[in-house]
């Protein structure tokens, strides 16, 4: 069924997609990534530079006073909860139409918008998360501590639940046949809230920190912002120094594998090769999409893990620990690729969602005065600028990832393996970047 506004229910959000980048641009980007990788290896520092205990400059006292104030925290809790209540309202009482703003709120504002917000402002989801707010409310009412649950959060679980949660979300978006119908989106979101509330009751706030897919994603991306903490103190760090403070936990590599693999599969799904393959055979597209998404995530994780473990080691570290030790170096690569993949979508469909938000019940009302705003399509009309920005983002992400991995290698690998030990991971990263550029060219 079609809606009068040009967006269909059967087809995901948004009509037209980006044009493919030119082969010259893809090759230029891949070459730059290759050259820079070996340049970094050849000329970068040889002793570790970043130390979480000392890195960063103390933020100006005025700024720290504001950010650490009770009023600031409450303000963002209120803002987050107001948006949450609005989303619940349109999800429950809105019509099952593509102009229902809930679809854009979930797929664009929440899923994609969280990345730039966290990149610029730090761990945003932690500050506005409605599930944290509800947990806090329960704790206030019962007089308990929101940080503590009935049990200790098991260390072994680490970020694994978040990896599964992220996979569940990308499955809804990319594999489930009706991702833009109201019912399934509402069900998914309700299940998310339910699991989060139970988890918060059982394990306290630590559950959100380690298992909430959106908080883990947002906080990981915020490691590339300039905002960090040294103990309790607000500090301003270089993004690379900040990234180096990412806690190493079980399942971290699974989180980055799902984020990178699913975004790559999203691109691949639009390529002629995949479309022809799926439509040419007798196998059900649903089954093929399931296999495809899983295969991309597993392959991303396997290539990365292999790149990490193929090195000489000292006695102080076990080989199986290496992938999680290096997993933070995938974050810049993921962010660069997310920018490339989602930039026009975020800006244009995100803007469209703001227009729809004024008409929550699809009856022509104009709650916030945004209903009559014109569409924002500047990026689509400047495809060369868009393509250049995408490739620059991918290459820049690659460079930062390589430097982050280099720093970790010289910190944890024994001296004689530091250079050779980095090579397999370097090749894995070049493969990711070249693969990402290929998909931007092919899709």
């Amino acid at each position, binding site marked *: 069924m079609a809606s009068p506004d040009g967006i269909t229910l059967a*087809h995901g959000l948004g*009509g037209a997609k980006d044009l493919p980048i030119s082969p010259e641009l893809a090759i230029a980007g891949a070459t730059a990534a290759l050259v820079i990788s070996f340049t970094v290896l050849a*000329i970068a520092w040889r002793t570790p530079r970043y130390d979480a205990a000392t890195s960063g400059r103390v933020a100006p006292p005025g700024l720290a006073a504001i950010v650490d104030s009770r009023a600031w925290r409450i303000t963002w809790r209120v803002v987050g909860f107001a948006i949450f209540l609005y989303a619940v309202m349109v999800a429950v009482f809105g019509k099952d139409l593509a102009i229902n703003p809930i679809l854009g709120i979930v797929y664009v504002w929440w899923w994609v918008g969280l990345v730039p917000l966290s990149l610029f402002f730090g761990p945003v989801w932690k500050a506005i998360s409605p599930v944290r707010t509800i947990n806090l409310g329960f704790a206030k009412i019962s007089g308990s501590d929101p940080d503590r649950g009935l049990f200790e959060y098991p260390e072994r679980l680490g970020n694994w639940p978040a990896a599964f949660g992220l996979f569940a979300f990308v499955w809804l978006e990319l594999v489930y046949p009706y991702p833009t119908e109201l019912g399934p989106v509402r069900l998914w979101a309700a299940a998310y809230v339910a699991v989060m509330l139970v988890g918060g009751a059982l394990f306290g706030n630590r559950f959100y920190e380690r298992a909430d897919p959106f908080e883990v994603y947002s906080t990981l991306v915020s490691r590339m912002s300039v905002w960090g903490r040294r103990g309790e103190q607000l500090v301003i760090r270089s993004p690379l120094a900040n990234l180096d403070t990412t806690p190493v936990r079980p399942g971290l590599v699974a989180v980055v594998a799902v984020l990178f693999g699913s975004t790559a599969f999203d691109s691949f799904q639009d390529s002629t090769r995949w479309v*022809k393959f799926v439509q040419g055979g007798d196998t059900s597209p649903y089954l093929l999409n399931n296999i495809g998404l899983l295969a991309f995530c597993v392959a991303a994780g396997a290539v990365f893990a292999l790149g990490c473990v193929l090195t000489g080691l000292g006695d102080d570290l076990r080989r199986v620990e290496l992938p999680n030790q290096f997993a933070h170096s995938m974050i810049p690569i993921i962010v660069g690729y997310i920018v490339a993949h989602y930039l026009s979508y975020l800006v244009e469909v995100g803007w469209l969602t703001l227009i729809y938000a004024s008409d929550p019940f699809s009856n022509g009302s104009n709650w916030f005065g945004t209903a009559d705003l014109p*569409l924002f399509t500047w990026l689509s009309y400047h495809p060369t600028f868009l393509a250049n920005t995408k490739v*620059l983002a991918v290459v820049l992400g690659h460079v930062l990832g390589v430097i982050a991995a280099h720093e970790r290698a010289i910190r944890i690998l024994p001296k004689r393996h530091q250079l050779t030990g980095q090579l397999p991971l370097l090749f894995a990263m070049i493969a990711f970047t070249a693969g990402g550029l290929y998909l931007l060219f092919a899709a």
Partner: protein
Amino acid sequence: MRRVLASTAVLMSALTLATACGSDEETPSGTSDPKVIEVTFDGDSVTPNGDRVEVERGQDVQLEVTADAPGEIHVHSDPEQELEYTEGTTTVTIQGIDQPGTVDVESHTLELVIVQLEVR
């Protein structure tokens, strides 16, 4: 660190320069002849089967449809276009699309992508 940053900066600017030449922000001509695509529906399959077709901005696309049953074609442009065809031979026209991008043209009936238009 300085040297890394400096080399990075040099390479990035070289990349920018290498790719920044050529601008594509011209206005659509709108005068060109329509692009003609033959489309054949046969049972559960369609030809072409998801091919890419380049069209100019604003250029109309004529689909010469041969079908064994009537059905509907969706064009996922903004705004969306819907085209109906009958059993036998029908010619339907996709109005020229102004906004650059990749636009899916789908058989709504079969849930298959017929072509993807690359509007440049």
